């Protein structure tokens, strides 16, 4: 008997499409939304500021975001398990440049054309996530 192994694998993974939100994509969306909100600024949020911002707005986040983020309780507050992937996603895409240590500010390198293009594209697949990210950006603390 010959099999359609591609179809077999898709059935195994119980998915026929590959379009879900990932922490890396969320990182790119947040960085793009932030740049669009503050076009003049080159200083993005620090690791801790971004963590707090996302945690403070998680209740209003769309379900797609809630599904991919997990929290870790620490004695000094709550952390997001996927925060490294979020930032590294945007960093690998070339949107952000960071220096060590993590409490220094992160420079945003994405230009306006890129961020508009990316956000418009992501809005087709993740409209509610893009809207939420824009709300996040508007509520972000000043970085400069």
């Amino acid at each position: 008997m010959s099999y359609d192994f591609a179809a077999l694998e898709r059935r195994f993974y119980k998915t026929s499409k590959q379009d879900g939100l990932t922490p890396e994509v969320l990182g790119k969306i947040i960085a793009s939304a932030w740049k669009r909100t503050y076009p003049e600024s080159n200083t993005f949020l620090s690791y801790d500021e971004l963590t707090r911002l996302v945690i403070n707005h998680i209740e209003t986040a769309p379900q797609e975001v809630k599904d991919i983020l997990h929290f870790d309780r620490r004695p000094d507050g709550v952390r997001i398990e996927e925060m490294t992937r979020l930032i590294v996603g945007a960093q690998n895409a070339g949107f952000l440049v960071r220096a060590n240590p993590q409490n220094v500010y992160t420079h945003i390198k994405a230009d306006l054309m890129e961020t508009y293009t990316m956000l418009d594209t992501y809005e087709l697949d993740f409209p509610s996530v893009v809207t939420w990210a824009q709300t996040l950006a508007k509520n972000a603390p000043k970085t400069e």
Partner: protein
Amino acid sequence: MPELGLLELREKLRTESHGLVDFVFDVLSPRLIPRDLKASSESEKVVNDPIWKMSVVGPSVLPLMELPLLQRLRRVRQLGLAHLVYPGAHHSRFEHSLGSMRAAERMFDALAETGNMPSEYQRRLRKVVTSAAILHDTGHTAFSHVGERVLQHALRDEYEAVVRILRQAFPDSLEHVSTAPAVAPERHKLPAAAELMSALFVLSPSMESIVPTLQHEFSPDECMMMMCGFILGRPWKLRDGDVHYYWAEGIISGDLDCDKVDYVARDAYYAGIPTATDIDRLLSQLVAVKARDDISAPDLHYSFGRGNPTELQLFGIRPAGASALEMFVMTRSYLFERLYAHHKVRAAERLLQRLLLQRIQIGREDEGWGLSEIFNLLYAPGGDDYVLGYLSNSENGHFAQLACRILERKLPARALAVSASSMGTTPRAEATEVSTFLPWQLAEDELSRGTVDLESEVCNLLNLQFGNDIIVDWYLPNPIREDPDIWVSDPADEATFGA
């Protein structure tokens, strides 16, 4: 403290796990934890190990070590198929489990001593921690993480049900004493399938016959629940008197836990990759960092007194050990690049993953496979080599061919490698063209989620056979998390935080 007793928890797990827990408790566990196993006449054994040298296996661990549950791990390689690239990397999950136990003992002793833990509580808790350490990997399937990934997908609904119950049954140890906003149980990360299986083995009725022989000083039910909590990273009974020994959680499941301490040293040693990690230095600098209510600690979200402990002890390291910790993290990252994510290792593992998942899916769709057949394959007592041998003799020529390719190391050769720069865009260049930047970003997004669709399209275009002729691979995200839950003690008062 867990809200359910052991019996109630078992019942709930059985009811809601779609048959998975029934199978593990009633079929798999009795096989791996037999009640009639003759106990060893020895009270301890001395084991030689290249990493830890001579280790004493004491009475709280020895009966566990002799179980088929642990002995099976002798035939499960720690690094899956990495030995096809690094010929020395044949070490097993069994020796890693022993090494983790030894690491846990040393970590516990260092932290308990600096935290002035009362000797009676120290003796009782140490036994539970070492037992949990040696059991933490018993849930691993053949081929370690490759088999685990297949199992996780094959039984996703069942595992999600188990996770849901365990997350509620084992609340976070800081849940009741933290002043930070509550974290709903569903917001905590899912443990991986192997970890869940280890937890289920510990909770199984079969384990009841072994636990009384371990000379623990907690009741058997308490002991099983405590070991399970440690494995899941949600331990309880970490309070003695007015002190909460939060650091104990990090020994079995944390950013510098016994598992990582052992595997970093062991994997590098057997793969023959020189590294600069100084495990002795690292462990010698561990310290219980005290956060007390009389100390000003503005970042601490912890409610002292009023029925809560008055002292919280954190998993810490002395400033003198910070560089050893940095080197440890760098070594993990280095091993990830050179060993775990080596392109040839990934090619071999993709081939194997494909073989296992296709075998299971065809078994389920055409041959009436259920839990029994899936577990018989992935938890075969003969381990990795048995499973490959079995598949290479398969009547289905496709499976036999794939298995033989692995056995004979006929791995896929790299035909094409692409990167941002080779595609005409660069990661954040001075003058990146939007025309290349956007497609690359979208391709990256899609490929990081899965490669089946692109693989299928390439096969159609080139008239190749899917599943055999070509593999599309995409880089693995580095799993190392920033911001580890490790506290550096104050150099002015090394046992005090925030002074």
